[in-house]
């Protein structure tokens, strides 16, 4: 990493120690957490597999750990591998037939759309166990102490910040590994012309499935952390098409082809909502989402590479200007 990046990281890591208020720290944590989730989606999205159903994996992550803890006293540390296994299973069950039967583009997006709704509807239908649309809170282990390792709960935002920071960096590392792998080149070829790629000997199904699996597992982890941090989940915020679309748009607004793009998208969404809330107060319901929706449409029409993507392109263009005049 360049020294500029190390500096940036150091500033980020040390900022909370300089005395941020609890609420700004909470916003920063959410930025990084959602940035991690959006990055997980973008690993798949940038390679031609646009999924409108990542809410399914998020919801599986959140609800498996909370249900395990509340009903079976299963520590979230054990619930986590269980959730990851469930997410992996769903990803393969949907992914394998999709990729094997060449369901791409619109059709793939709509199948994943249906998947997100299936997960949400199942959560709501099992309302006796899951609390349905009212949501559920993991039973608190913080009554006697400020943190409980077994329950994966902690009341200190500072500790959570470092946990989420580490996970976010891990997500960026995974993004990097996929970016530099042969799979990425192969998948880009597949996205252009699947039959030609297959004829050259690429195992299309296996390549697509492996990236889908990575993406699903990262999203699931995000769901687990979200549940343990917020200590409240409900089907609308962690599953269904609402959050699925939000993930897609956050990643696209920031720039899904760039490593830090999705994080920029997450920061942008959160800060826009906060800024409008501060400016307009609580009375005007929905103004922030209206502006956000409008900007999304404008982004996709005029800036399909997202904020960071377009910014980096403009920067690169300026640097390529020749310095010597023709003789």
């Amino acid at each position, binding site marked *: 990493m360049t020294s500029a990046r190390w500096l940036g990281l150091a500033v980020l890591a040390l900022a909370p120690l300089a005395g941020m208020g609890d609420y700004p720290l909470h916003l920063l944590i959410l930025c990084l957490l959602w940035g991690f989730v959006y990055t997980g989606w973008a690993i798949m999205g940038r390679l031609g597999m*646009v999924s*409108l159903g990542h809410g399914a994996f998020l919801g599986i992550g959140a609800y498996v750990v909370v249900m395990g803890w509340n009903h079976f006293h299963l520590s979230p540390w054990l619930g986590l591998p269980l959730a990851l296994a469930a997410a992996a299973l769903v990803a393969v069950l*949907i992914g394998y*037939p*999709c990729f094997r*039967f*060449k*369901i791409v*583009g*619109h*059709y793939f*997006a*709509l*199948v994943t*759309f*249906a*998947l997100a*709704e*299936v997960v949400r*509807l*199942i959560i*709501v*239908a099992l309302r006796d166990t899951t609390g349905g649309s009212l949501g559920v809170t993991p039973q608190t282990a913080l009554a006697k102490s400020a943190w409980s390792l077994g329950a994966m709960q902690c009341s200190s935002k500072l500790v959570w910040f470092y946990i989420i920071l580490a996970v976010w960096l891990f997500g960026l590392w995974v993004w990097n590994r996929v970016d530099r792998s042969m799979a990425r080149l192969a998948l880009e070829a597949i996205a252009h012309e699947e039959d030609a790629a297959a004829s050259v000997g690429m195992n299309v199904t296996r390549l697509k499935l492996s990236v889908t699996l990575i993406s699903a597992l990262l999203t699931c982890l995000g769901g687990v952390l979200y549940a343990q941090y917020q200590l409240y989940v409900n089907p609308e915020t962690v599953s269904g*098409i*609402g959050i699925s*679309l939000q993930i*897609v*748009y956050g990643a*696209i607004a920031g720039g899904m082809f760039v490593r830090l793009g999705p994080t920029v998208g997450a920061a942008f969404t959160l800060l826009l909502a906060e800024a409008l809330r501060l400016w307009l107060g609580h009375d*005007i*319901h*929905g*103004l*922030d*989402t*209206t502006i*956000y*929706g*409008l900007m*999304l*449409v404008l*982004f*996709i*029409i005029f800036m*399909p590479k997202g904020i960071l993507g377009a910014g980096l392109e403009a920067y690169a263009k300026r640097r390529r200007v020749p310095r010597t005049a023709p003789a």
Partner: protein
Amino acid sequence: MHIFDIFLLEAIVNGILLGGVLALLALGLNLIFGVINVVWICYAELIMIGMYAVYYLHNVYHWPLALAFACCVLLVAVLGALLHVLVIRPVLSAEPINQLLVTGGVLFFLQALATLAFGIEFKNVGIRLPAFQLGGMYVSVARLLAFAAALAGMVGVYLFLRRTYLGTAIRAIAQDRGIMPLMGVNPNRIFVLTSALGGALAGLASCLLVLQYDIHPAIGLTFGPITFMVCVLGGLGNMVGGFIAAFIFAQFISVGGYFLALEWGYVLAFLFFIGVMFWRPRGILGGK
């Protein structure tokens, strides 16, 4: 279990009636996709705006219902045309997934706009149509009306596409977009017209749905996903396929909801959709 259980029969009949409405919704979406090759993910939101229009015209400004309905159809038709001109046309040459996503952005935008403008309380037009008895079953007149209007709408569109000059132009463009300018037809004008027609069908749907459901900004999310799935199930762009798929889907929802809880009916329908996608990736009657 008594096969001729009257409630099961009622569920089946209601399923057929629901199928009629879904078929109407699917018709508009299929028309747009078949001709312009874009999926309007925000189609249900257009219907939502239409429903609010009827509410405001009839309940707040006290216009007669028939006038409110006519206005609603016109309004959503104009909205459809605007959607195409302002949002779809700039991305027509971009990747298909961008077109899908831009309509998703409009979905967000319309939902938020409705929240802003109309608030989040549920509104209702307050017209209570009776339910008549048919041998122990209760059949809602509102649903029957919706079914009849849907059938009429479909026949109307079919005749329009087959018998009028404009309809023929629309069908021609759906078959071969590239050659139309050579034949002297302005594809742009046809696209705007088709969008308006799709919007008008959405307006008709909102008139029918407003008699049955409460209005609130998120109502699009209740039948939006279902509408796409019906279209894709039948084969995107294939109107007969959409028709058949609508009835199949509605039966899953209705009968599934009868045997299990309401949500499971939807879960079954969606799982059925995913299953059929694996079997026939292009939809039952698809093949584009």
